[in-house]
């Protein structure tokens, strides 16, 4: 069943055309990766799908309502004077979930010991984990993650991958953007590659790598991307 889709979506900011005829579909229970360098239009797609922006032309669709969506965006939106737990309690109250579930979620992201720590005293990695905890607190049916592991140490990133995998196993659809091709290769069921607002390739990471004969010791989506774009970021 289709969970998220875009059909011939176009978006411009002034003269700059950010999305040019973007079409894709994601299905329930899959981890879908949106790959591309900075400025390729990834965040614009998330902003459209979460209804913070509208398309100039074309269609966008998300199968669930906003309260069934989990979000991790560019700006963390945390309350910096409140503790980690208090930040989650705001959403615990909104979603009507139990304190036990909130504490379990904190535990899943490894922040139990820091539950009373004020957010402005957290390291970047810990903030990132708290944002993920907030995003998954209510076991959302669709989870949007914008660069979920950027600036995280490898160990913490692995913990996040596990969390994302667990959510997928429970039937959630995960839509993530990343410029980390290795992350996409290991994590995503399917990916699309975005370059200058255009989809240049899509499919399962393994299939794409096979298509372009791009295996070193492991699958290498990065080489595929460089081949397709001729090595230009913009």
């Amino acid at each position, binding site marked *: 069943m289709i969970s998220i889709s875009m059909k011939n979506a176009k978006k411009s900011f002034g003269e700059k055309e950010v999305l040019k005829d973007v079409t894709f579909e994601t299905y329930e229970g899959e981890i879908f990766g949106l790959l591309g360098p900075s400025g390729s239009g990834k965040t614009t797609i998330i902003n459209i799908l*979460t209804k*913070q922006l509208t398309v100039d032309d074309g269609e966008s669709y998300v199968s669930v*309502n*906003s*309260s069934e*969506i989990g*979000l991790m*965006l560019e*700006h*963390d*939106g*945390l*309350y*910096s*004077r*409140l503790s980690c737990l*208090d930040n989650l*309690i*705001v*959403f615990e*109250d*909104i*979603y*009507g979930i139990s304190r036990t579930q909130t504490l379990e979620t904190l535990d899943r992201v490894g922040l139990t010991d820091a539950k009373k720590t*004020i957010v402005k005293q957290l390291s970047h990695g810990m903030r990132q984990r708290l944002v993920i905890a*907030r995003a998954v607190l209510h076991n959302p049916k669709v989870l949007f993650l914008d660069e979920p592991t950027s600036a995280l140490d490898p160990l913490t990133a692995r913990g996040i991958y596990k969390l994302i995998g667990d959510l997928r196993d429970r039937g959630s659809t995960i839509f993530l953007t990343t410029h980390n091709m290795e992350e996409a290769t290991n994590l995503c069921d399917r990916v699309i590659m975005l370059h200058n607002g255009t989809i240049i390739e899509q499919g399962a990471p393994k299939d794409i790598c096979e298509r372009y004969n791009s295996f070193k010791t492991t699958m290498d989506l990065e080489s595929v991307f460089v081949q397709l774009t001729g090595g230009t970021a913009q």
Partner: protein
Amino acid sequence: MRNTKAVFKKQFKDTLKNPAQLIQFIIFPLIAFVMSALIVTDFEGVPDDIAEIIAASMPTINMVTMQATVFVGMGLITVIPGIISEDMEKKSLRFLMMAGVKPVSYLLGVSGVLFFVSFFTSIAFSFISEFSGLDFWIFTGAMMSGVAASIILGGMFGILAGNQQAASGLVLPIALILGFGPMIAQFNDTVANILHVSYTQQLNVIADYLTLGGGDTPLWQSFAIMWANVAVLGVLFALIYRKKGLKR
């Protein structure tokens, strides 16, 4: 209702942990208390005729009246735009809205906290003035009517501003007029006539009536003017909200 309660709880905790906001609710009663204590009203040892001359020449400004007016017109009015614009700027509001919180629930939750905390500030002013019985309720009624007007006015600036710097810039001139205008009006009839329709001037009139006695304006008229202010500001707020909404 659940969402309003969630925002209320969040805002209450945040206000208690934000010294810049919290101080607005504490500093004005504190100044009133200190300044009231500093004014000599005890003329013991001074001959009666001289004491009478001194008392007659002392200004008839009541410190509670002055500080209560500045709190409602100036202190409080800067708090709510600060909260709204901070939530917009840091994108916290976006996450609340995405979680299903309606703008109205958000505004009610935030305003509710300010109304609630202001009630305690009002009690502190009453305590300093030693108001009791009917006087206490009249003063509290006047204060909370003024608080309601300031919250609505501040909310308008919060919606219009979008970021904390712009909010301060927009609010300050109005806050100065509303906060200090009634004080100037005591020395200038023209200013008093102009400010007669403002809620802070009427708060000043009511507080003076209770502390100093008398006054030209009947109490009911002062309350009517204050509530008319609340109604007019409410309509203006609704218009601005409909036009601009809450920027995420």
